[in-house]
């Protein structure tokens, strides 16, 4: 019996290997690698970029990012801002429709925004819409939902009132949390409105099927107002979290786009695929934070010395194969509303001078050679790249200060739980990706009142005061100046040592046209097309 089974399976195997052939597609299909399984397709629950890529293809917010990463009108055709800077009036497109053919209304947006701020929804990114009047109070259960500053004036006119002028509000509206849901669908289907077959969306595509960890298929939405210009018939998202596996599937020509691959592959891939390898700097900073409540890290000289001794060029060039940029400021460069960030004083020094200065500072502080012994523990979350950075930094601190450096890594959940709950440490890795293109998003991490985000327990009243002023400042230039002053304090005190400005790595097949690298890392499929 066993041998017959063997023969049978061998025959079946041979047959399927020989006779299976790829079906010919007449339609334009984009095979889009997505770096992991989306955890949700609910705009109120979403929190990660791989969900954003899918959601923004399915839905269209009031504003959207174009192929170059600039804010352009989306579901809203135009808008006006009141003179006091707190009331936006959005005019929705007359021909904006849901995928079931019903019109997209201002009521849908009102419903969506209220849904996000409702404490019962427990939206992860509820704070994205906090600039809207009463949003924060509602989300914290201190005000009625009806008081939210969003009002549908008529079917196509939406009025949004803000707490205070917020220069980056249009950016926030392009975030996936601000995407609309169909009021009718959510009221009818409840939590199931996200399921294929049920989902009603207003973007260029509509959801067809979703097999977790295998594929998510979206098809062109004929009811989209700009459907005539959508060149793709179908987009298949492949949720592959194994970076090496997605590169292999790209090389086997099974995928046209790959988001995120291991930096040490860059050189080889550039050799084989040349300009199909895309590296685009993004608004994200990789940094080490010092625990300011612990000696010797409560000493500004020690923090500065340690920060200076890190050869960021080596990290960027050798560890990340040139795919990252040395960073000397917490706010990454390339922020349109902010301009050049306030870098640390040692940014312009050569690495040797930095090391001399670092030794000097360390000596003053009484540590290192001839002083108290320096024992440093670097904590990082488990990841090969983080381990390589930690290894290199450990070696630099060993060589420069003759310090004893140990490394400790924990899985991502334990690592951040420890930091967020105020655990004691020496030096820990952290990273921040901009939620919206504004310096405030980075600087607020160091407010002394920000118990969760401020891992290093940095407490500088002067800094807090400057930030407070910036929130009240309406003039964009004056506000930018205040933020720069605040950042200068950070750069002086080095509660965190910014190491690298991160870049997004993409593989874009030659089949794909319409691709533009951008710092916002926004790539709507509707602007892309494929050739056969």
């Amino acid at each position, binding site marked *: 019996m066993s041998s017959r089974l*063997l023969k049978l399976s061998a025959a079946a195997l041979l047959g399927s290997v020989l006779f299976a052939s790829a079906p010919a597609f007449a339609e334009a299909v984009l095979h889009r690698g997505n770096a992991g399984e989306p955890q949700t397709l609910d705009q109120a629950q979403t929190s990660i970029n791989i969900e954003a890529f899918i959601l923004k293809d399915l839905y269209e917010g009031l504003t959207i990012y174009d192929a170059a990463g600039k804010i352009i009108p989306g579901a809203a055709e135009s808008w006006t801002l009141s003179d006091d800077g707190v009331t936006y009036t959005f005019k929705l497109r007359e021909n904006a429709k849901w995928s079931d053919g019903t019109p997209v209304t201002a009521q849908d947006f009102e419903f969506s925004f209220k849904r996000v701020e409702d404490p019962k929804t427990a939206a*992860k990114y509820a*704070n994205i819409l906090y600039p809207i009047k009463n949003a924060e109070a509602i989300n914290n259960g201190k005000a009625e939902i009806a008081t939210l500053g969003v009002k549908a004036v008529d079917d196509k006119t939406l009025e949004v009132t803000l707490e205070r002028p917020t220069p980056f509000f249009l950016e926030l509206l392009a975030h996936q949390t601000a995407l609309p849901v169909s009021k009718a669908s959510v009221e009818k289907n409840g939590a199931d409105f996200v399921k294929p077959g049920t989902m009603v969306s207003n973007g260029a595509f509509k959801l067809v099927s979703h097999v977790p*960890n295998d594929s998510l298929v979206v098809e062109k939405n004929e009811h989209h107002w700009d459907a005539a210009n959508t060149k793709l018939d179908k987009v298949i998202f492949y949720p592959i979290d194994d970076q090496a596996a997605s590169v*292999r599937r790209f090389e086997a020509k099974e995928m046209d786009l790959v988001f995120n691959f291991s930096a040490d592959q860059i050189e080889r891939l550039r050799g084989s695929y040349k300009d199909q390898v895309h590296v685009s700097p993004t608004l994200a900073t990789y940094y080490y934070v010092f625990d300011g409540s612990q000696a010797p890290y409560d000493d500004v000289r020690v923090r500065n010395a340690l920060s200076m001794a890190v050869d960021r060029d080596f990290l960027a060039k050798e560890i990340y194969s040139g795919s990252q940029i040395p960073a000397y400021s917490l706010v990454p460069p390339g922020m349109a509303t902010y301009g050049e960030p306030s870098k640390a004083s040692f940014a312009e020094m050569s690495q040797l001078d930095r090391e001399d200065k670092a030794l000097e500072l360390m000596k003053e502080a009484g540590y290192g050679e001839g002083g108290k012994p320096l024992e440093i523990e670097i904590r990082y979350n488990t990841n090969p790249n983080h381990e390589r950075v930690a290894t290199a930094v450990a070696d630099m601190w060993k060589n420069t200060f003759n310090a004893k450096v140990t490394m400790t890594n924990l*899985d991502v*959940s334990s690592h951040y739980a*420890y930091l967020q709950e105020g655990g004691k440490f020496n030096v820990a890795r952290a990273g921040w990706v901009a939620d919206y293109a504004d310096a405030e998003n980075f600087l607020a991490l160091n407010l002394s009142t920000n118990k969760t985000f401020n891992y290093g327990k940095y407490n500088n009243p002067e800094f807090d005061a400057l930030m407070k002023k910036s929130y009240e400042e309406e003039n964009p230039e004056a506000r930018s100046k205040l933020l720069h002053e605040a950042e200068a304090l950070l750069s002086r005190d080095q509660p965190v040592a910014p190491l690298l400005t991160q870049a997004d790595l993409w593989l874009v097949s030659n089949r794909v046209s319409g691709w533009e690298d951008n710092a916002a890392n926004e790539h709507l499929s509707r602007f892309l097309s494929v050739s056969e």
Partner: protein
Amino acid sequence: MLAFVLRRLASAVPTLFIVVTISFFLMRFAPGGPFNLERPLPPATMENIMRTYQLDQPLWRQYVTYITNAVQGDFGPSYIYKDNSVAELIGKGLPYSMELGLYALLLALIGGVTLGTIAALRQNSLLDFSIMSLATVGTTIPNFVVGPVLTLIFAIVLSMLPAGGWGDGSLRFLLLPMIALALPQLAVFARLTRGSMIEALHADHIRTARAYGLPPRIVVITHAMRGALLPVVSYLAPCAAALMTGSAVVETIFTIPGIGRYFVLGALNRDYTLVMGTVVLIAIFVIVFNLVVDLIYGLLDPRVRHD
């Protein structure tokens, strides 16, 4: 026999209960929770979420709620994959894992026993040596090496087979993951078979049978095989349970939409309900396969009686 099966199944209920209880509390000892992310949540948001998932209640109450719901077949929502309940996730993934696992098991079992028997019959020959060396290589090379090497050769260099995905579920797609999954187990089966087969061939009744001049093939298949398969059958239960509940490594490398990854992902992300769901599933598989194996034992060796 039936009474034996029923008794075993009845005794599985307390086993499951203990497993669920231990894992429930064990899990909560681990630091961090499902919502400790790289991007920390503001305290107010965190509170909203904890309330929604009833994680703000005392542990014992959460436990009682969980058990009450689980008994009614409700394993709760997944904390990470929020659009799905745990039952839905497992329901969607399990058929893929089981199908792939079953193929891999058949390949490993048939291939392993055949190779092991051949090696035993030609003990110490070149053939024996080659088979055993191959089997050793099979056990020694981890599947996170076999997987990428296979795809490199067959998908990228030769462009013969797909580099991953379930596709239409045809053997074209399943062949490489199946081999990667089966190889280490095939080698184990081969070694176990060879070892016990040699022993069985030296046993008195086999020598007697041979001395009577029975054809070697009959002796091997009808007499020696029975005894020789006992260790193989012992190993079958854990092996089948492991293969059919999916492999995190193989499923990740070949992007198979099975449930193998849920256990690891769930554990690392503290998706308590998802882990509990997979724990219950694995427990059921282990119990069922052990029962099956004990029944096979009875068939192979009349001296083992289920009384």
